[in-house]
């Protein structure tokens, strides 16, 4: 038992003495948390907008003004013909083009209907869909206004019925994407650091020969493994703490649930990650190999974790696969506890699955660590 203490002492000394690594372990992730959380947003803003107005009527000018006034669109230029405009779109200077034909106003008044043409750069399909939605909204609003004005001159037909939809956004009334992303990114950073460090650690001792030296001592492999991994568990929890403080201070991320619950869950989650790191280092010979394999799994797990894209949108086979993804559970728990105030019973399914995962992985890892070859 005391032996574990000696190993832990040595590990901590080595970690903190490594002046080059310290900023990478502590400063880099937190810096990324601060900066990158601001980058993550699916909102589409500052849409590069241009128009061709062949009508130049009061109506067309009014419609263009509506786009100008909108906070989503950035009116960049107006063009004389379509060729000019598509040239600009090719260059990437314009994303949305509004083309108002010559008899726009006249047709509207005389024939009670008129056409418009919208061209959208759809390379980013998702963004294009969103932009199309915004455009529709503006045009519908304009249409309604015009109709009311024009209708007041004619006899009213029977009034159409109107169904009003009232949206209500729970847990995130401002639809702030950061509220969603900050906890997720924090999860990512804690996972990456813990996995990479633990994965490389034992391999490094293999490479420099001290592992063999230790294998000749009477130390039990359980003692050795616990001593080696415990410091990284501490670092993981430490990063979580600092990250949470930053999230609260700088992003004002809500913390509706119990922090204790979050720590409780994380302490088990880290066991999964450390087990993975240990398993990887048992099967690799060089640090490079260990890093590569760890990287491979991390990227796949991150992409399939529900952090950047929702799991519900994945095909059934992929959703099945995410059951094996520990990061998915962590992301879910963090969001449920912090943003919805979930309690112990609410996260029980994730907790149980994580515990099972930790158990299996660590048993495998310890079994595969051979003091004797």
């Amino acid at each position, binding site marked *: 038992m*005391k*032996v574990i203490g000696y190993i832990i002492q*040595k590990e901590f*000394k080595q970690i903190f003495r*490594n002046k080059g690594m310290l900023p990478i372990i502590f400063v880099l992730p937190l810096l990324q948390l601060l900066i990158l959380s601001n980058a993550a947003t699916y909102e589409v803003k500052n849409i590069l907008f241009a128009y061709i107005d062949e009508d130049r009527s009061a109506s067309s000018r009014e419609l263009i003004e509506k786009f100008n006034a909108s906070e989503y669109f950035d009116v960049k230029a107006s063009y004389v013909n379509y060729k000019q405009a598509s040239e600009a779109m090719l260059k990437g200077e314009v994303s949305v083009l509004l083309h108002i034909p010559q008899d726009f106003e006249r047709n509207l008044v005389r024939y009670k209907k008129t056409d418009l043409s919208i061209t959208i750069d759809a390379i980013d399909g998702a963004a294009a869909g969103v932009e199309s939605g915004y455009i529709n909204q503006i045009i519908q609003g304009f249409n309604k206004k015009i109709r009311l004005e024009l209708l007041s001159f004619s006899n009213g037909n029977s009034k159409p019925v109107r169904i009003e939809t009232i949206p209500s956004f729970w847990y995130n009334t401002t639809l702030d994407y950061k509220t969603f992303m900050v906890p997720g990114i924090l999860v990512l950073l804690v996972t990456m650091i813990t996995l990479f460090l633990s994965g490389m650690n034992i391999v490094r001792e293999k490479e420099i020969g001290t592992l063999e030296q230790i294998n*000749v001592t*009477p130390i039990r492999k359980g003692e050795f493994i616990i001593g080696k991994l415990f410091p990284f568990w501490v670092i993981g929890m430490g990063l979580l703490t600092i990250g949470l403080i930053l999230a609260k201070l700088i992003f004002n991320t809500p913390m509706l649930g119990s922090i204790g619950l979050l720590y409780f869950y994380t302490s088990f989650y880290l066991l999964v990650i450390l087990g993975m790191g240990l398993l990887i280092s048992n099967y690799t010979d060089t640090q490079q190999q260990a890093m590569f394999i760890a990287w491979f799994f991390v990227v796949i797990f991150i992409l399939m974790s529900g952090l950047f894209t929702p799991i519900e949108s994945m095909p059934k086979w992929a959703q099945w696969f995410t059951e094996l993804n520990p990061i998915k559970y962590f992301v879910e728990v963090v969001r449920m506890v912090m943003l919805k105030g979930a309690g112990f019973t609410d996260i029980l399914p994730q907790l149980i699955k994580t515990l099972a995962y930790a158990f299996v992985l660590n048993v495998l890892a310890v079994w595969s660590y051979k003091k004797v070859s």
Partner: protein
Amino acid sequence: MKEENVIISKGLTKRFGGFTAVDAITFEVKKGEIFGFLGANGAGKTTAMKMLIGISNPTGGEAMVAGFDVHTQQDAIKKNIGYMSQKFALYDDLTVAENITFYGGIYGLSRKQIREKRTKLIETLGLGEIAHQLVGSLPLGWKQKLAFSVAMLHDPQIVFLDEPTGGVDPITRRQFWEMIYKAADEGTTIFVTTHYMDEAEYCHRVSIMVAGKIEALDTPKKLKEQFEVSSMNDVFLRLARNIE
């Protein structure tokens, strides 16, 4: 006083697939002996030693080290032996004192014992001024002496040294062998592998491995008489030529 055998090997074998690295070696080492385990690079010395120190499972044969079976009692063996690897495996980013403390702790010594030994060691080796320097910054000779001392920290019955003098100058080598003599005088058995044939002269008895088999086993004096040569180097050359 009857001399007991602290290492007994009978037909010890290690095979890797179709390749036999250690081919049924049989020998004994007496308590307090300095036993030289010689052979060219690749002859199988290190593989054989790994079986004796309990980090490699033999494919065949038997061996007892410090009274324990190498097949089934590997942990007990490790409690009673010391080991110095070829790479002088000390932690470059820990200080001299910290390395001693660490290995002392790993061997299960009490805090008091560690403190005493550490002080004694630093004094004996004359490391007083550099006790708090990182091992990485030490010259090779100091590392070597430190590694040996660390291997002896828990007063083991037998100490295994794997090519302990690689890369050091002759004076340091001499000093190192003086440390070995002192330990042997105090009753520790020394099992040392080397490919420096002149170091064989320093041993009580030597064995010479060629291609996995022990082809010679006796005192250096008797071997030189047997092959009618004047140096262990020549013994080895003769042996190698005979095999061909």
